[in-house]
């Protein structure tokens, strides 16, 4: 089985989000970039499946040169090789076009990624890639097993989950608890340095919904503390002041 896992390069979940250039660019000063947490789940499951079925695992990212350490980390965790599509990921459609092209060229059987990126939270790249390739897509997938061509999945729905049976090839947007995050070990880190990382140029420049500018939410007022023996006062405030009861 040939597995493709799509990796985003995103600010760490603890990052303070700020913008520069007249609110048109993320201020990356002091921001640490990581593999998207959902992509990290997809990668962990992909490594397990590759080890079980003895196939190959390629990691791909659409990003400029600064994303290479993130791809190297995916190699350290267990991907066999990596591809970087050399462009800023302008919007979901732009990214989906590049990924669909890579997936088609490489005839991958299983395409995994996170359910959404944690920067733009679109949650649409997996579906777009599936439709562009004319193959099924599923998300958010919390369990995925492969037996021959048959794929058994659990997909989270509001208030529960549904079990789905499908056939390869397919695309899945993953989330926990599909697998446990893997931390690269020393051997992985050493071998990642020499694993192949190919850089290719984008196949299309088309976008559909590119963000033009950004805004931070209004600052929150300070908390009103209520004595623990005055819970009735909290009820009153929720009713008359906050008007939420």
């Amino acid at each position, binding site marked *: 089985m040939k597995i493709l896992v799509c990796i985003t390069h995103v*600010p760490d*979940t*603890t990052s303070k*989000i700020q*913008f520069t250039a007249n609110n048109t660019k993320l201020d990356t000063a002091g921001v640490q970039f990581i593999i998207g947490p959902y992509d990290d789940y997809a990668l962990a499951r992909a490594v397990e499946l590759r080890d079980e079925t003895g196939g190959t695992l390629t990691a791909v990212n659409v990003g400029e040169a600064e994303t290479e350490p993130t791809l190297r980390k995916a190699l350290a965790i267990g991907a066999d090789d990596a591809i970087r599509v050399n462009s800023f990921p302008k919007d*979901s*459609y732009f990214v989906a076009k590049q990924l669909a092209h890579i997936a088609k060229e490489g005839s991958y059987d299983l395409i995994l990624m996170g359910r959404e990126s*944690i*920067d*733009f*939270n*679109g*949650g*649409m790249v*997996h*579906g*777009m890639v*599936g*439709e562009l390739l004319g193959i*099924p*897509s*599923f998300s*958010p997938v919390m369990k995925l097993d492969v037996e021959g061509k048959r794929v058994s999945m659990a997909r*989270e*729905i*509001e*208030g*529960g*989950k*549904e*079990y*789905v*049976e*499908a056939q390869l090839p*397919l695309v899945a*947007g993953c*989330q*926990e*608890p599909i697998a446990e995050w893997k931390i690269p070990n020393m051997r992985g880190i050493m071998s990642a340095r020499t694993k192949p990382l190919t850089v290719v140029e984008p196949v299309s420049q088309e976008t*559909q*919904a590119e*963000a*033009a*500018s*950004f*805004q*931070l*939410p209004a600052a*929150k007022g300070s*908390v*009103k*503390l209520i004595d*623990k023996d005055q*819970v009735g006062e*909290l*009820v009153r*405030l*929720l009713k008359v002041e*906050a008007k*939420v009861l």
Partner: protein
Amino acid sequence: MAILVYLEQAAGKVKSTSLEAVSFAKALAQKTGEGEVVALALGTMDASELAKVGKAGASKVLYASDPRLTEGVIQAHASATAQAFKSLGAKTLVLAKSSLGDAVSARLAIKLDAALVSNVVELPDLSSGYVVKRSIYTGKAFAFTPVAKENKILAIKKNAIELSKEGVDASVESCSVSLTDVDFASKITSTERASGQILLPEADVVVSGGRGMKGPENWGMLEELASTLGAATGCSKPVSDIGWRPHHEHVGQTGVKVAPSLYVAVGISGAIQHLAGVNSSKCIVVINKDPEAPFFKAADYGIVGDAFEVIPKLTAALKAQ
């Protein structure tokens, strides 16, 4: 001209978030001059429920009653919706952001050659072009997205608009869609759904517990508080990781993002990843025994105290009024 709304159902009833999408579409149609709002219902549904979609702002409901569409088969839902969109001659599709909505709308964006904007928080600004405001960085910021494509899909975030109840009953028209085996190639073999509970992503009030609750045996008091408030229950990630609560209750960056009117957090420290899932709430109440807990900085109201003491008192005070 019309705007199409993709409706989702839970046990035969239209989801409240889908009704919000209808109200959003109605206000949008008034703004853009796109005419009426037509809603699409897929799968077996309660027909009397469908007329009620009119109250939220739709003038017509297209009802594709194919029972195979009752479950959310992603490919089939995308094909059926694309057909309805084209035969209606619509240019805009509105839907609520959800597990199924995300999966279906992404495929539709390609099928309809439409610009898809997700997590939309308010009506687009038409003063220069068509600019959509959406929530990004898990609620930590907003992005303004100009859309030039003729076909548009807006996936709205909860509370993007107030649900309207002023409309009149809609006419319900049956709608036939032609679906192939390919659309149903994947099969939903079974579904597990918590029954009789308010669904977390749709809830207007949420009561969440964290590791400070000490164990699953203590959830009874949170459930009682929740039922007094008509709330859904949620939890922090470690709580679902240890298995005290089911995964679909996990709130935060890597779990469910909620946007209720009232979020009550009990024994949750308020780690930034948890806050990311609740920062769209209108009002946040924090109960924590540690006055230094970071959650207090994100709260509107707080009580510093032991949950096991405060919760029963709070439930009693709510019941008393």
